[in-house]
């Protein structure tokens, strides 16, 4: 059996797919996440809890808002702090902006070129200039939402343990509100690029457990499991070929992300893995609706942050990041020092589902010039984030 490695492109981070060929046909696959490990679980150890948000937002630039918010929620739980309503509300707006940016980036810059056999958005500009321009403008709106709510589009410094530092300027909020109303009307026409089944090659459903969270519980195939019991559901395994820890439940691959979130809502099952793209497109619409509704509510902004005192404790928080369930867990000493930290990311969780999807769709496929392209397109549809996935392994 011959095997070869194909570099993954139009994907965040460094990764490869290993194609094992027997008798001229695909016999087995492996997905290898190959970013340089940065050991975030280790580097926050020994730091004070107040230093953690700045550090962990750097796990990943696209997912920085989600990491920062879930980290402060876990720490606030450990420290038994309830944040003021204004802080909770502004963090929600930040997460909506992050979802819009992340999904639009994935769909328009990474997936869309495949639909017209282009290498990049630069080539695609010659074929679909208006659609690309609209996509990039909408991504800017996602970035603006994060800038205004988080203080910056990447690594938003406004989110701290106990609340937020500053409430945004009213003129900036008003301008965002106006843009959002416009996009709410414009999006349904653009969405069809990614919800149209004919846009994608054939792909099939896979036998997996779906994982989502409602912030209070983890939901494994819709069954509620306590957050604190995450290790019983997410059975981690380190393998030699990927630098990201893989996860499974009782030997079954786990699927997280937009496709898992909308598994029961839409009849996209026939799209196979590309149901993830269709689901993301719908979620952009839902996020625009939610952001418009956010502005309709009067906010009380007198109190933004509550005092936080160091105390020993444990905290676990999970949220639906754009790419799927993201979980942070911390244990603190009495002086507020991080004793242990664990970060579990959607891409790490999805690794085995990616391999299963590749085998389901491509096992026995002829080893021709298009095989690597088709494999990459399947992996890309999961919207992997390899910086996130490879944050963990101990550095040598």
């Amino acid at each position, binding site marked *: 059996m011959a095997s070869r490695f194909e*570099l*993954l*492109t*139009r*994907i*965040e*981070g*460094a990764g490869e797919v290993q194609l094992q060929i027997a008798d001229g046909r695909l016999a087995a696959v492996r997905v290898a996440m190959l*970013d*340089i*490990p*940065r*050991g975030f679980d280790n*580097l926050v150890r020994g*730091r*004070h809890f*107040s*230093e953690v948000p*700045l*550090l962990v937002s*750097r*796990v*990943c*630039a*696209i997912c*920085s808002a989600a990491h920062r918010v879930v980290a402060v929620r876990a720490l606030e739980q450990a420290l038994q702090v309830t944040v003021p309503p204004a802080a909770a509300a502004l963090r929600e707006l930040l997460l909506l902006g992050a979802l819009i940016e992340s999904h639009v980036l994935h769909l328009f*810059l*990474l997936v869309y*070129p495949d639909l017209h056999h282009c*290498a*990049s*958005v*630069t080539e695609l*500009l010659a074929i679909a200039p208006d659609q*690309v*321009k609209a996509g*990039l*403008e909408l*991504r*800017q709106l996602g*970035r603006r939402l994060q*800038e*205004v709510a988080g*203080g*910056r*589009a*990447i*690594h938003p*410094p*406004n989110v701290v343990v106990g609340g937020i*530092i*500053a*409430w*945004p*300027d009213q003129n900036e909020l008003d301008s965002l509100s106006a843009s959002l109303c416009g996009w709410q009307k414009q999006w349904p026409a653009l969405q069809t690029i990614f919800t149209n089944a004919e846009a994608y090659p054939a792909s099939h459903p896979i036998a997996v457990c779906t994982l989502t969270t409602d912030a209070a519980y983890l939901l494994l195939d819709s069954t509620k499991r306590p957050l604190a019991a995450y290790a019983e559901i997410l059975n981690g395994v380190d393998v030699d070929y990927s630098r990201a820890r893989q996860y499974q439940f009782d030997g079954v691959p786990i699927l997280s992300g937009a496709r898992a979130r909308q598994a029961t809502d839409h009849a996209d099952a026939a799209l196979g893995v590309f149901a993830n793209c269709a689901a993301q497109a719908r979620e952009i619409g839902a996020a625009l609706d939610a952001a418009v509704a956010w502005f309709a509510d009067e906010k009380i902004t007198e109190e933004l942050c509550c005092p936080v005192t160091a105390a020993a404790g444990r905290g676990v928080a999970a949220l639906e990041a754009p790419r799927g369930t993201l979980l942070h867990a911390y244990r603190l000493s009495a002086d507020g020092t991080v004793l242990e930290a664990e970060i579990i990311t959607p891409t790490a969780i999805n690794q085995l589902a990616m391999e299963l999807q590749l085998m389901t769709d491509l096992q026995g496929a002829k080893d021709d010039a298009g095989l690597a392209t088709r494999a*990459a397109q399947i992996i890309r549809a999961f919207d992997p984030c390899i*910086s996130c996935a490879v944050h963990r392994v101990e*550095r*040598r």
Partner: protein
Amino acid sequence: MSGITAKVPDPLQVGVVKLASCSGCQLSLLAGGDGLIQRLQWLQLARCTLISSALPQPAACFDLVLVEGAVESAADRELLHSLRRKTPFLVAVGACALGSGVLQGQGLQAVADVVSVDACIPGCPPSTTELVTLCGAVARGGLPAAVTGVVCIECRAQEIRCLLEAGLPCLGPITRAGCQAACPARGIPCEGCRGWAEEANEAEMRRLLLERGVDATLVDRKLRQFAEGDHGQSV
């Protein structure tokens, strides 16, 4: 018709290398709606696996290589050496590549410790404007003028309310300028992500932080989180 025609220059061939990093520096370069579309006309991302499947041959040359992230392995060093030999402009971009930032103490190297660099762009991440200015200068055959001064000065020039005066622990007085005081402009204290300016007065900054309630055990880590070389924590 005049005999003089303006020659449209060939697009700048840019290679983007990601080492140990979060992709934030490339994302900063790739920000923008119509602005990004315009940028992609004169700036060709000849190698940028984040958004392009185009993979040039190993022997291919670039006009400009942007290196994001810290250096881990012999393979990283070999890649940097081979790019350096054939690249007129090789620039270290962002805190991790400059040897500061969140990866300090992880046994990684700064890009400038491995190869000579033509410029260092600080920030975690650097701003879009700074990266576009760099690419524009290289497209005209040069490098942008060095930014001098501290964030504090940029803040005052915009008449932003002083956060230190409001009692907040802002690192503006010691932090390299160039971000237009983006965070203080939104009422958020500078976290110092651009590293120390040459004129940084450490003792005075420490005093200001302690006076504003920063815990004595945390003050040095706060001062040095994004500081480089002699100022930073041991790499």
